């Protein structure tokens, strides 16, 4: 069984900074590898500005995906936005936390969209993520 965490971040996003700090803390204490992946087109180097790296959740903001999952409300919202000329699947929404784990039965992923900022919900998120990773990593220290 293997576990690793991928954080898809954008350099100017305040939530990403908090998410990175929290995940670093959790992963260091549990010994789980953390991989950072910059998405979007905000790069410091000139060449990076022309390259666009999509996030791994962009396809979830489409009508097809909402229909597949069975979320009719979301589908309606996406349809309304498209009527105004806004395509939500084109936005780079960060941060995205991917907890990848796998074993003999194949690979599985928990993909978390977004991260909270207020203190109380941060505390709860820390506890939930810590426990989840601890269980997945098999109680390793």
């Amino acid at each position, binding site marked *: 069984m293997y576990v690793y965490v991928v954080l898809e971040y954008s350099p100017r996003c305040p939530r990403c900074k908090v998410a990175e700090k929290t995940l670093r803390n959790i992963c260091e204490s549990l010994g789980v590898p953390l991989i950072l992946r910059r998405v979007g087109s905000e790069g410091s180097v000139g060449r990076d500005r022309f390259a666009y790296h999509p996030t791994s959740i962009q396809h979830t903001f489409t009508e097809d995906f909402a229909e597949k999952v069975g979320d009719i409300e979301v589908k309606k919202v996406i349809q309304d936005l498209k009527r105004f000329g806004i395509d939500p699947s084109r936005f780079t929404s960060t941060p995205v936390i991917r907890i*990848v784990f796998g074993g003999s039965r194949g*690979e*599985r*992923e928990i993909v*978390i969209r*977004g991260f*909270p900022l207020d203190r109380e*919900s941060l505390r709860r*998120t820390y506890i939930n993520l810590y426990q989840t990773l601890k269980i997945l990593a098999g109680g390793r220290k």
Partner: protein
Amino acid sequence: MSSVVSEAMYIIFSSIFDLIERWKRRKRKKKFYEKLEEKKKLPTPPRWYTGYVRVGDRARIVGRHTKLVVDVPYYGQTKYTYSAPEKIYVTAREVVSPEWFSLLKHLHERITGRGE
């Protein structure tokens, strides 16, 4: 007179030989297409491939290093197939909620099909 007979004989024999040749050609064509169909029925793996190939009710095993080809009865060996990683999509609001673990359990059961 004799020239007429010889001409007639020539025409008759040549037509007979032509017919025989046409039959032979037809036979050759038939054999060629039969062989092609046989090849389609028993696909041999490419030279670089090593692993199992299912041929009807038999499994053809190609040795990894030796490139030996062995035909054995099929006992459920299958060619390696890629399975995409299964994903559970959640939002930050769900991570914050105290029912996070029950939700994860429910989603995991939905993926694996154990809960239903």
